[in-house]
């Protein structure tokens, strides 16, 4: 933009990293609001939440957890690869991360699709007949996994931009703060899932 030419160009990697961490705090609190609502309603409807959780597929949930954990590893490895100036390996690992993220979304789609087929979605008559605890559970389920899926999509976009930058050599062994920040964001998305998975699929 204009005027940057006279502003002395300087790069402060520490500043951008602090900025990213602060942003991550805000993301945690955004989900934190939903976690509060979840705990209040779980406390008020223990039986309904227990029975509703049985409806979710532990298998798909576990597969998706493994997928995200591996993708966190590959993104971390791609940063190490860049630091060691191994561009090809970094490109490979970043592409792998993005592929895993897409597989996660495909699984999620089938999972949601199944729930819709059974009429388990907000506003449906079936869900209304099941009672208030189930309405709350599935409302929270769709909102929280939906918001998480939105973060996965944003993550895919961010990682794709990083991939292009690595290919174009805009990210290199002496200038990789952006990639590190993208990695931090991806770990955050992973971390939130690590909490969502037991809350919805495992606790019963």
């Amino acid at each position, binding site marked *: *933009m*204009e*005027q*940057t030419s*006279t*502003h*002395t160009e300087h790069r*402060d990697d*520490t*500043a*951008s990293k*602090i*900025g990213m961490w*602060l*942003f991550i*705090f*805000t*993301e945690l*609190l*955004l*989900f*934190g*609001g*939903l976690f*509060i*609502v979840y705990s*209040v*309603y779980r406390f*008020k*409807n223990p039986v309904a939440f227990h029975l509703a959780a049985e409806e979710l597929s532990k298998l798909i949930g576990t597969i998706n957890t493994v997928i995200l954990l591996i993708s966190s590893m590959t993104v971390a490895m791609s940063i190490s690869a860049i630091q060691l100036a191994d561009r090809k390996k970094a490109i490979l690992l970043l592409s792998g991360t993005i592929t895993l993220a897409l597989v996660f979304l495909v699984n999620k789609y089938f999972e949601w699709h199944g729930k819709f087929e059974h009429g388990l979605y*907000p*506003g449906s008559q079936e869900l209304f007949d099941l*009672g*208030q*605890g189930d*309405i*709350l559970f599935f*409302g929270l389920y*769709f*909102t929280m996994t939906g*918001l998480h899926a939105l973060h996965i999509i944003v993550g895919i976009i961010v990682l794709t931009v990083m991939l292009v930058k690595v290919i174009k050599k805009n990210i290199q062994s002496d200038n990789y703060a952006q990639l590190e920040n993208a990695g931090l964001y991806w770990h955050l998305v992973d971390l939130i899932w690590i909490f969502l998975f037991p809350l919805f699929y495992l606790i019963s």
Partner: protein
Amino acid sequence: MSESKQPSYLEYQGKYKGLFGWIFSVDHKRIGLLYMYSIMTFFIVGATLGLLMKLELIAPGKTIMDAQTYNGLFTLHGITMIFLIVIPGIPAILGNFFLPIMIGAKDVAFPRLNLLSWWIYIIGAVIALSSQFMGSGPPDTGWTFYAPYSFKTTTNMLPAVLGAFTLGFSSILTGLNFIVTMHRMRAPGMNWMKMPLFPWTLYGTAWIQLLATPIVGITLLMVVAERTLHVGFFDPALGGDPVLYQHLFWIYSHPAVYVMILPAMGVISEILPTFARKTIFGYKAIVASTLAIAFVGYFVWGHHMFTAGMSGTAQFAFSFLTFLVAIPSAIKVFNWISTLYKGSIHLAVPFYWAASFIFVFMIGGLSGLVLGALSTNVHVHDTAFVVAHFHFIVFGGVGFAFMAGIHYWFPKIYGRMYDESWALTGWVVFFLGFLALYSPMFYLGMKGMPRRYFDYLPEYHGPNIFSSLGAVVMIFGLALIIINLIRSARKGEKATANPWNGTTLEWTIESPPILENFEEIPTVTEPPYHYK
């Protein structure tokens, strides 16, 4: 003042000229002024709405509007004043302009993000205000969007809620930017304990913006989901709990009060030493109380809900914490007064504003204790007393501090002096109008007049006339002030670099500053407010 080799930020021509040179500028000073012009525009709208409400209340029964119009009006007045004006207010205008200069930096840490924040602010404002012109009539829930009414009402709620959500992003990004700026860009020698107090209060504010805003963001999204997709969150018919909405809303919106008042306290802490020619009394105490307010302010939200249904234990805890948070505010007042003690006070318009700030802030703060105490709270809950209290704090506190700040820094911003006698007259008229407008509401509230009704019982008529006339006087004073500032920005006398004999870094550079603020980044050796 040395002869300038570089043009000032007002004259500097970048890639874009004219208007585009402003709305695409990444210079923190221009962005500060962009915020000021937009916020002032909204403020004139919000103040007009307030005046219309006071005119409706000049007599019992329908005076100039019907009940539903009045409901729409107080909702829009609240949304505009809170989300568009007071929350961004001082940090976005004076903070953007002066934070980098006062810590000896050339700009904020992320200049482009700073410009993005302003754009998000404008987009959020447009979304919020579009609620007035589309769909099925203006929202009528009040600015708090309380469930379950906010998803039952047929009025056009969605844009208002989404607008508030969007504005939250702008607030978060500004806070993030300021924190990183203060951590990374202080001039050599300026350690934390040599940082002036206005940046310190912005630091506390920025953390609140960062950590509290996401909660209201997600809460508003839940309201949107409930309204559009019928997801059960707060609707009792779907098993939800409306009181939980109030909790989540106030977890943000009470700390937001400190987003408003902390920077105001910072402005006052800058002005008083300058006009008393004396170092600030208890610098460390002011810093500590700033952080204490930011911290304790998180845990007092329940005092908005004493009558909403909560356990006796919770009420007791929230009441206790509310009294606790009053202590650091009182510490600040004592420090300000002690700063004046034995100072050689120079009477000028910024000082009058600052002194009247302390006066109205004390009334607002002490009336807050009436509301923080459980028994009196039940008596005056949702009455005009509450309205008087928060207008004394939010409008009296933040508004007076902003006026103090804008007059104080006006010569630095525009390189010109304002007209002293106009400014003084404006202050007198505004101050008297303000007191006449809000003081009767304390009485009316104690007598039981509820808030948010377009009508009232005949026995409340007298004080209401007084209050409405006060509103007219205050708006007249406001007009005097704004006209004076606009005229002086164009035609005022040229200002020197340091017209008030201030000691902080912004007074060491030219008025108006050059694009990069400093010809050479200064090295700081003295604490701020160092008067010999």
